[in-house]
């Protein structure tokens, strides 16, 4: 039981963190056709701003303010940047966000330095909530689940119960029609972009002290978030949720499995020997293959089912 339950809980926490990032990205991607490379950069900015603010005004105020800062940055990017490149097509927009990520990464290194900053869990939540088979479950992870779950509920209510939400939903699938009906689609775009960046910033605030706040955090998480979005499928928030949890679980479980293919195929590997390339591939432990799996999943799904798990149209 213990090798299943603990990774299950941790995988769920990690998956929820991924979902906070991926939900904003999938909304932006589905509506505007722009795969926002800078999204993980915004996540990183959220973490760093929260670090600075938690020293000045405390963690709880940072929890409110830092995501708002990120939303403002996002709105600025959309209005002054993306909208200007829009007439050059999706590739130009993609490249714009790509360049932006470049600048954000170096900018963060310049402002906050190359080394990790000591962004810690607030003292109020720094205690083990319960013990499970001898392993503590920190209260902060429960708090993360609470925030992520609350946000999930809020998005759901916003999208299904409000007028803006209905327009956003319609723009996901039929942007031209929505525009023809007289809605200000560019303004909806700005709103969604700012909203997505708000979520990324919030994920940064609660994820920065769960992981490590360092300049490489965006580059290491960014591609994983793309995997989540592509794997879940375009235009589907529930697909995004499922794939976040799946990727979170896959990565957590892979780390906790210590075996390798060689354990299953013992005699064959003994015959090949571990001294050559084939033997090495077979005898590598699953825990080290973990980082490979999400990318293999993405390449596979793009080859055979380009619309993703629950997508409504091809990527």
């Amino acid at each position, binding site marked *: 039981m213990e090798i299943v339950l603990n990774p299950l809980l941790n995988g769920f926490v990690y998956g929820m963190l991924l979902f906070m990032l991926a939900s904003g990205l999938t909304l932006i991607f589905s509506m505007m056709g722009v795969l926002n490379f800078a999204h993980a950069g915004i996540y990183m900015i959220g973490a760093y701003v929260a670090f600075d603010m938690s020293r000045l005004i405390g963690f709880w105020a940072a929890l409110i303010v830092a995501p708002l800062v990120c939303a403002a940055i996002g709105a600025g990017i959309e209005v002054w*940047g993306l909208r200007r490149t829009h007439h050059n097509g*999706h590739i130009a927009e993609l490249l714009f966000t790509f360049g932006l990520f470049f600048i954000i990464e170096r900018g963060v290194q310049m402002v906050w330095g190359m080394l990790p900053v000591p962004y810690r869990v607030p003292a109020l939540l720094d205690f083990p909530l319960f013990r499970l088979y001898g392993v503590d479950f920190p209260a902060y992870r429960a708090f993360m689940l609470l925030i992520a779950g609350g946000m999930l509920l809020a998005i759901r209510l916003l999208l299904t119960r409000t007028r803006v939400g209905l327009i956003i939903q319609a723009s996901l699938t039929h942007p031209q029609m929505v525009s023809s009906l007289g809605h200000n689609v560019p303004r909806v775009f700005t709103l969604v972009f700012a909203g997505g960046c708000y979520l990324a910033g919030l994920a940064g605030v609660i994820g920065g002290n769960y992981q490590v706040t360092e300049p490489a955090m965006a580059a290491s998480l960014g591609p994983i978030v793309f995997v989540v979005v592509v794997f879940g499928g375009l235009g589907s928030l529930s697909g995004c949720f499922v794939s976040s949890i799946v990727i979170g679980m896959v990565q957590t479980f892979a780390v906790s499995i210590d075996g390798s293919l060689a354990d299953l195929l013992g005699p064959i590997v003994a015959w090949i020997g571990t001294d050559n390339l084939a033997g090495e591939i077979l005898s590598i432990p699953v825990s080290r293959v973990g980082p490979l799996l999400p990318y293999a999943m993405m390449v596979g799904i*793009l080859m055979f089912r380009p619309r993703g798990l629950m997508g409504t149209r091809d990527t």
Partner: protein
Amino acid sequence: MNEAAAKPPKRSRQLWLWAALILIGVAMPWVFYDWHTARQSGFVLTMMSQMGMMVIFSLSYNMLMGQSGLLSFGHAVLFGLGGYCTVHFLEAAGHHSFPVPLELIPLCAGLTGLGFGIVYGYIAATQRATAFAMITLGLGELTTTAGIMFHHFFGGEGGISTDRTNASSLFGLSYGASVQVYYLILAWTVLAALGMLFLTKTPLGAMANATRDNFERARFMGYDPRRVRFLQFALSGFFAGIGGGLYAITYEIVTYDAVSGALSANVVLMTYIGGATFFYGPILGAILITLLQSGLSLLSNAWLIYVGVLFIGMVTFAPSGLAGIIGAHGPLARAGRLGRLLVPYLRLSIPAFATLIGFSGAVELTSFLTIGEAQGKHLVLFGETIQVWTPQPWIVTAILLIGGGIWLRRECRAFARIWDDLNADLKDRSL
């Protein structure tokens, strides 16, 4: 429209330009020849060698980006795998089990690049546009992770190293001196560039352009866009492999950096800044970025910020890159009107310079607050140490940046008016 205005520059003139470029490449090591030590400048040689490889690499990338409209985020995979294989070739040559002279080893690297291009291309060519970009991103990350993980082929984090003098030579050269390697790189750069230029003139090159511009129509005409994508990908793998082979020969070590996302990102920047819609654009981009890389990185911690801003500026204001900017002057130059732009350009250059100084001042001051202080460095300008914690330098940069920016905007509008007038005038005359 008049024939003369529409016709591209004469073939012979283009040929002269190419010849001049090659001549500069040949002469460059001797321009920086140090007569005291009777040696070429090592810095210049390293930089020029790097330029050669990057020219091949970005030209091969442009076979996808510019010519086929495919955005790849994992092109370094083909480059790096060519490099890894070259190291193994050279090692084998050391054991006398690989009797190929060093001059032809880049060709072998190209063939392995072609092989990997066929494998990766088979996977990636199933999709186009954003999905293609994502597949290549995934393949790139897969290969980088595998490069760190497997020791037999990739050597893990330390990479694998070799000795290029293992191989024999067709001309009896030892290739111990880097100037010999430089001329080898130059020769292969010219060959590869000619090969890629030739490919753009073939039916395949034309079909790549067709699938880029309208893939549905290309399909209606009976061509399979997937096959076109596959062929372009595999062939660009061939040329990227040549670049990787030269990389391995020059540095004699290949680590996972050569397949990493950073290099893939670099080639996107080079190709786009140079201009993806022109054949010679990536050459300009590769030369410019390598110059910045070797020159600016010595002066500034934050040189990548400048490259990033340049890239974003290009994406927003000049999507056809440097080559596009130069090309736009073509009709005016042929009509002999380029002189009329001299004064507007001079007027533009003053606020542009002010803004540039202001911007780089802001970047440098910020970087000296953090990275510079961590390294114990001080900002020294014109022989005077500037105190970055006092308000004066910040106020000066703010004035330059904001004032210069506003002024630049006004001048840009004026310049655009003159530009449009000149071009409209040109059109009227030719009608």
